[in-house]
């Protein structure tokens, strides 16, 4: 049972009286942080908050109540935790918090700077901030996802419970902290390298050096941005003066890979070589209809049909195409049969 002196009892009473205000302030603080992070384009893994419980406050006052003149001296009545994906984002979040709140620098801690060069441990940023409109304080903790995992697991072991822990155990925990710190750095490095790769690919696509660009999700997305099928789609649309509905074309990545394209250059050559054939398919299918709406997938779809027909892939190849684009279905068999039948009348199949 917690036993408090009269001074601590007064602080506890002040806490109880102001609890509704703290609840209101907690929501406002979280919302303002969310908005600020959103505006700065910082994606975070989590945002948690809590109001210090009465039991926790009483325990703190029992241990060191003499330290606190009033409730305003307690630095974490409201606690907020921002969990980032990358360690590089911690600085950005800290800067956002600094812009939002009045930071009490005397009580704020950057544990990253306190660690000795030869030791590992829980690294975290803690900013003590003034609760807007109130003479009380909130603590904002900023950690990466891996630091958060380490801190939680470490807490769960009871490492800081006051019970003496064998040195081997502490050594194991520190080794784990070092491993996670390394992993944090690696994730950051991979992110930077991916961003570099993306920029280089965009430059190569823009310069037209497509044979130097391997075909993968990232490069194909960049390639789609330059509209490789636009000309073909416009030509097909002109058959019935149709409107073109733009739709995602990423599903064609797997199809082009299946057609043994290893680089964007391979895809570009197929577009050049088979566009006329793809147009002939559209003329045959749509010429006698009044359909005046098409999706932007019609160009690449007909292109793939033409490649398969011209290279003798037959019904099996066409079924593969429709299964890849539309999902497996018995109806795709019928479509493959229909295309095989139509192919007999297509000019490019009779040349």
């Amino acid at each position, binding site marked *: 049972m917690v036993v408090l002196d009269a001074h601590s009892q007064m602080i506890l009473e002040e806490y109880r009286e102001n609890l509704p205000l703290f609840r209101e302030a907690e929501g406002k603080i979280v919302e303002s942080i969310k908005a600020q992070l959103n505006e700065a384009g910082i994606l975070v893994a989590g945002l948690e908050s809590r109001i210090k419980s009465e039991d926790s406050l009483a325990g703190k006052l029992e241990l060191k109540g003499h330290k606190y003149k009033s409730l305003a001296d307690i630095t974490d009545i409201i606690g907020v935790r921002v969990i980032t994906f990358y360690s590089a984002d911690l600085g950005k979040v800290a800067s956002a918090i600094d812009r939002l709140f009045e930071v009490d620098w005397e009580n704020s801690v950057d544990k990253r700077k306190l660690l000795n060069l030869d030791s590992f441990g829980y690294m975290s940023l803690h900013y003590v901030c003034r609760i807007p409109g109130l003479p009380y304080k909130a603590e904002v903790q900023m950690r990466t996802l891996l630091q958060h995992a380490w801190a939680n697991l470490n807490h769960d072991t009871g490492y800081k419970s006051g019970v003496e822990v064998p040195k081997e155990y502490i050594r194991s925990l520190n080794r784990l902290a070092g491993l996670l710190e390394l992993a944090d750095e690696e994730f950051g490095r991979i992110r930077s390298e991916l961003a570099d790769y993306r920029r280089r690919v965009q430059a190569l696509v823009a310069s037209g050096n497509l044979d130097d660009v391997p075909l993968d999700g990232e490069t194909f997305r960049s390639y789609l941005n330059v509209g490789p099928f636009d000309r073909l789609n416009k030509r097909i649309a002109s058959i019935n003066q149709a409107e073109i509905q733009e739709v995602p074309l990423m599903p064609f990545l797997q199809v082009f890979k299946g057609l043994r394209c290893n680089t964007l250059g391979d895809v570009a050559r197929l577009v050049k070589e088979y566009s006329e054939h793809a147009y002939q398919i559209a003329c045959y299918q749509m010429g006698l209809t*009044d*359909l005046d709406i098409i*999706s932007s997938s*019609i160009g690449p779809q007909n292109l793939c049909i033409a490649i398969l027909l011209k290279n003798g892939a037959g019904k099996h190849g066409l079924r593969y195409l429709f299964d890849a684009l539309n999902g497996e279905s018995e*109806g795709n068999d019928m479509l493959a049969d*229909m295309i095989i039948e139509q192919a007999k009348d297509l000019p490019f199949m009779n040349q």
Partner: protein
Amino acid sequence: MNVNIEKENGVTIARLEGRMDTPACLEIAPMFESLEAEASGVVILDCKDLAYISSSGLRLFLSLRKAAAGKGGDVIIKNISNEIRQIFVMTGFLNLFKIEG
């Protein structure tokens, strides 16, 4: 052209009957608007008795798909005939929808 809308276990089912040509589409457009209002959930378009679909019909389907995508819902097309499947493939609409049966 008839559109019968029912709700079964939280799923909206619209049974389409007849020819979805341009005049019919004008007639049934309000019913598709009511389907769009339900598009935060699953909407099934049962095309078992749909004999034909025009560009106007494709536009109604597309508008419903957009509404569902915006609301986190889903549109499933069921029981389409071979003729309508051909129209979907020749316009590049086939892979825009979940097609079952």
